[in-house]
């Protein structure tokens, strides 16, 4: 029996109610709402993340415009405070995290030789919950448009320090949107992370031992563990804050003996691992790009992996370095100071190993490589200013000054964003089968690189010259005008660079040059696929013989071909390629959560007329979510089988197969 043969239908599912019919849409809106294909979900993550990246970037430009000259009145104080709150929250939770999730979804299963993630419908649920969380977080923007008082976008800082977030100091509903938005994003992140962990542990192709995992997959695994372990802290903190605001509890409420400092500990026990949640995926992407474009394996693979683990582990032991100025006492300050310095070691190790990877290679200076090298340089600078912060007495001057802003933008833009931009260019040929023009790619890199440095390098000087962050205005007598003016000009250049980047990317998506498979002469399994990858990913699940699995295959073609044919037979004997059904229920469940969240944000500690309508709305939300989960369970985790011709085209799908 060859791969094109198909089996007779063995079992027909019993007749089901129409509601439980599996959606079959292959195009259009229904397809997008019901898809469980990790590549399509990855694409949607990326799509929404890029939209919010542009929103967050626009907010940043407004902030910089306000600070361009001293005593500017471009934005009101309230609007400025809203802008920096939403800029931070948006960039962290709605841009960098989901963009990383886009790569986890799209690339990770391909790297381990899997046909999908472990729980495809849970994956769809994560996506839609992220989308509704993003909407709840941003819904306050429309309040002022319709002139509804008390319904603004959040303005208490992305870290929401108590007691500024209490009902007394933030009487409107803006903080409630922030609370419920973050809760939904937490649900989405934890669900997605559990999915990735199970996928990586259980769904690796034969021969793909843990120490053969591509580094990006390793970093996906570490990030997923960090999310699962750190998000519960902010979940608890947000629940407590919600209770304080709406039901009169006293977790943080000073008048009731609550402790605002408790919020800071809970927030940063989440918040510091969050920093590594943002940077580890970036390090993974860089560890893929540098070997590919140096045409040699990663230098010191085991130690790079171990460094990632150490960073993740130490990430839970340093949260109080965000609180050096809170009067923790000498011993605690010293302990967190030294623990923070320790993180510099595994981080430094990564830099050394990346340089080792370049050493002796044939470096292909293409756009992804440019961004990757830019990453290494910028991340070094951000890392050094990070070490400066770890020296607590020095940090007491730098904390909450523009020096810190410079530091974390070097880490988050020069680090995370550069890596994500590199990853988009790197995997674009695989994802869409098209290639961005080198000229435009490199041009966008240089404009972004220059704009970024002109924006953020002067901020080091601003901070050392005593400019505090989160200030909507400053006087001209403090020596801050020139650096601020330069920074603002830089931010416009950065904005132009980003515009070039994304316009070029959008153009390429529709009209770009088509390229053949394995465009970069890659090393890992995803490059063994046609581009764009077919819905079933691997025609035959590969067997892995080496860390750089695809590189090995390319050098051992005959051996692998023989083995592949063998496995194809075995797989066909099992009924062909098993695929999961699409489902609308994850989407319905997410919509239920959306209704619940909106209703909860409207609660009020002083019940007014209409409280019953709000309670009822909450119940309606629960009902929708319950229906979603109920039918989700009822429709079962069945799938169907695909049968392919010898070109890989689907000749039949057997929709009644059971798993």
């Amino acid at each position: 029996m060859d791969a094109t043969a198909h089996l007779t239908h063995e079992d027909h599912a019993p007749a089901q109610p129409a509601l439980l019919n599996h959606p079959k849409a292959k195009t259009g809106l229904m397809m997008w709402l019901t898809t469980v294909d990790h590549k399509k979900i990855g694409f949607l993550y990326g799509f929404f993340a890029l939209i919010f990246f542009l929103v967050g970037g626009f907010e940043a430009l407004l902030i910089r415009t306000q600070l361009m000259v001293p005593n500017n009145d471009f934005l009101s104080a309230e609007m400025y405070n809203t802008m920096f709150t939403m800029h931070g929250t948006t960039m962290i939770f709605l841009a960098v995290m989901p963009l990383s999730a886009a790569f986890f979804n799209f690339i990770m299963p391909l790297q381990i030789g899997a046909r999908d993630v472990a729980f495809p419908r849970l994956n769809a649920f994560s996506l839609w919950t992220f989308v509704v969380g993003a909407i709840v977080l941003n819904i306050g923007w429309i309040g002022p448009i319709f002139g509804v008082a008390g319904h603004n976008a959040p303005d208490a800082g992305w870290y929401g320090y108590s007691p500024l977030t209490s009902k007394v100091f933030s009487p409107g509903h803006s903080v409630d949107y922030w609370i419920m938005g973050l809760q939904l994003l937490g649900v989405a992140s934890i669900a997605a992370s559990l999915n990735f962990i199970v996928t990586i542990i259980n769904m690796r192709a034969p021969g793909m031992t843990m120490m053969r995992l591509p580094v990006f997959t390793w970093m996906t695994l570490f990030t997923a563990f960090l999310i699962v372990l750190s998000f519960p802290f902010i979940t608890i903190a947000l629940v407590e804050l919600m209770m304080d605001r709406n039901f009169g509890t006293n977790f943080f409420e000073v008048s009731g003996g609550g402790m605002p400092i408790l919020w800071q500990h809970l927030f940063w026990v989440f918040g510091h691992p969050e920093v590594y949640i943002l940077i580890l995926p970036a390090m993974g992407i860089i560890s893929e790009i540098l070997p590919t474009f140096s045409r040699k394996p990663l230098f010191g693979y085991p130690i790079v992996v171990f460094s990632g683990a150490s960073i993740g582990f130490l990430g839970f032991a340093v949260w109080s370095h965000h609180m050096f100025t809170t009067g923790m006492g000498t011993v605690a300050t010293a302990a967190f100071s030294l623990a923070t310095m320790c993180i510099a070691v595994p981080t430094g190790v990564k830099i050394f190993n990346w340089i080792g990877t370049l050493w002796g290679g044939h470096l292909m200076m293409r756009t992804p490589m440019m961004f990757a090298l830019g990453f290494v340089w910028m991340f070094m600078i951000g890392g050094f200013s990070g070490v400066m912060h770890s020296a607590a007495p020095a940090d007491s001057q730098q904390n909450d000054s523009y020096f810190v802003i410079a530091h974390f933008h070097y880490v988050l833009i020069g680090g995370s964003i550069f890596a994500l931009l590199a990853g988009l260019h790197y995997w674009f040929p695989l994802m869409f089968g098209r290639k961005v023009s080198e000229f435009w790619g490199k041009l966008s890199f240089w404009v972004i690189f220059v704009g970024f440095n002109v924006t953020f390098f002067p901020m080091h000087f601003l901070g050392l010259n005593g400019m505090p962050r989160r200030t909507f205005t400053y006087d001209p007598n403090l020596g801050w005008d020139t650096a601020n003016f330069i920074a603002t000009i830089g931010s416009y250049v950065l904005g132009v660079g980003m515009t070039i980047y994304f316009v070029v990317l959008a153009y390429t998506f529709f009209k770009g040059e088509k390229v053949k498979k394995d465009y970069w002469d890659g090393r890992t399994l995803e490059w063994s696929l046609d581009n764009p990858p077919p819905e079933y990913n691997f025609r035959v699940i590969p067997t892995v013989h080496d860390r750089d699995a695809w590189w090995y295959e390319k050098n051992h073609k005959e051996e692998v071909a023989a083995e592949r044919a063998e496995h194809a037979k075995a797989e066909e004997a099992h009924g062909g390629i098993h695929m999961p059904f699409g489902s609308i229920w994850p989407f319905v469940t997410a919509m239920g959560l959306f209704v619940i969240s909106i209703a909860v944000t409207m609660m009020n500690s002083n019940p007014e007329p209409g409280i019953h309508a709000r309670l009822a709305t909450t119940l309606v939300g629960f009902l929708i979510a319950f229906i979603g989960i109920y039918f989700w369970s009822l429709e079962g985790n069945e799938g169907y089988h695909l049968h392919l011709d010898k070109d890989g085209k689907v000749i039949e799908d057997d929709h009644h197969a059971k798993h």
Partner: protein
Amino acid sequence: MPTLPTILARSGRAVIALAGAFCLAGCEKLNFWRMDGHQSTIVVDGPVAREQLDLFLVTCWVSLVIFIVVGSVLAYATFKFRARSEADEHAAPPEQSHGNPLIELSLIVASVLALVVIAIPTVKGIWNTYDVPEAERKDAFEVTATGFQWWFKFEYAKEEALVDSAGKKTPLITANELVIPAGRAVRIHLRTFDVIHSFWVPKLGGKVDMIPNRANIIYLKADKPGYFWGQCAEYCGDSHAVMRFRVIALEQKEFAEWVEKQAQLGREVPAGSGTTVSPQFAALKSFKTNQAGITAAYDKTPLDSWRTKQKAESQEDGNLIAKGREVFAAKNCGTCHTVRGHGAGGVTAPDLTHFGSRTTLAGGLLENDETQLRRWIHDPLAVKPGNKMHFGVGAMAGYMKKNDSGKGYTRNITLTAEDEVALVAYLQSLK
């Protein structure tokens, strides 16, 4: 028709030429890296800030050395090993090496050693700067600073001030300008009753937060007499950016004189005394939102300006001042503000007993002169967004009063132009 790369190269050259011209023209303006502003952490005036600066410089040098070494290797590797042509890229792949444990281990050891260089002064610095050193503790000057949205209250527990003419005394309280003895360790107890603030005088030392339900302290010391800029460093709501203050360090003798003067009741200027001030006195000028309210003269020699403010104005209009005092009482300003001896004892707003002797107003935001004071009391909301003099605080009304329904505000205090001018004269007379 020039090609795109040519156009880009040409425009690049034009930009560089323009930037060069700009640099030459604005050389003085562009040297922002001097970092010697009023809030500099690099040009400092006290031992605490100096220890923090020295530690920062250690981290800087260590970082710079490592950066140069690692950066050079990275740059060398990039240029040395880059493919110079398409053919080069597709030449036979280089040796597929996997790493070198010896190199990696030695680099780890080197990183750890570099960190030890930073760690030792860090730990020393933590103990040295956390509190007043043991040796100086007996002589340390103690003061309590409390943050409010958006101003600072300073309370001198051991320096007593008269409350009434009968001789009753309480601890001395001032606002927004902290006067301390120079050359003496100062321990400031940091308190807040609303949200978190942070006390930061960069030239004297790093910041420490004011957190509700938490008794923090900060240790500072000024080498010599001086006038220092400070600012709240923790986001505390609408007007965080304009929550500023000053620290004035004085020789022991001058400091003692200042305390003695502050301990007195609010100054009395009898009606009918002095001369009538001109109609231009405290004329209402229009200001843009966020417009700066300081003069160059004050900015240049602030300590001299402060000393000048301690003396009575040369021209005072007793009648106008008396009218201002009436307005102050009639508009119930004393519900929130204190003027000792003038029947005003409010505690939710800055103590104004010696307001006229301060160089700044509105939480260190504006220079304390007639123009800026009139600007402030004419429309406080235009100066400080969300401020409590406008909206009131708690159950106490400000210029506006919260409606009983809990939604919206109605006007509570209306000042005529005459009221404003009289108030300015009265407040300025409170030396």
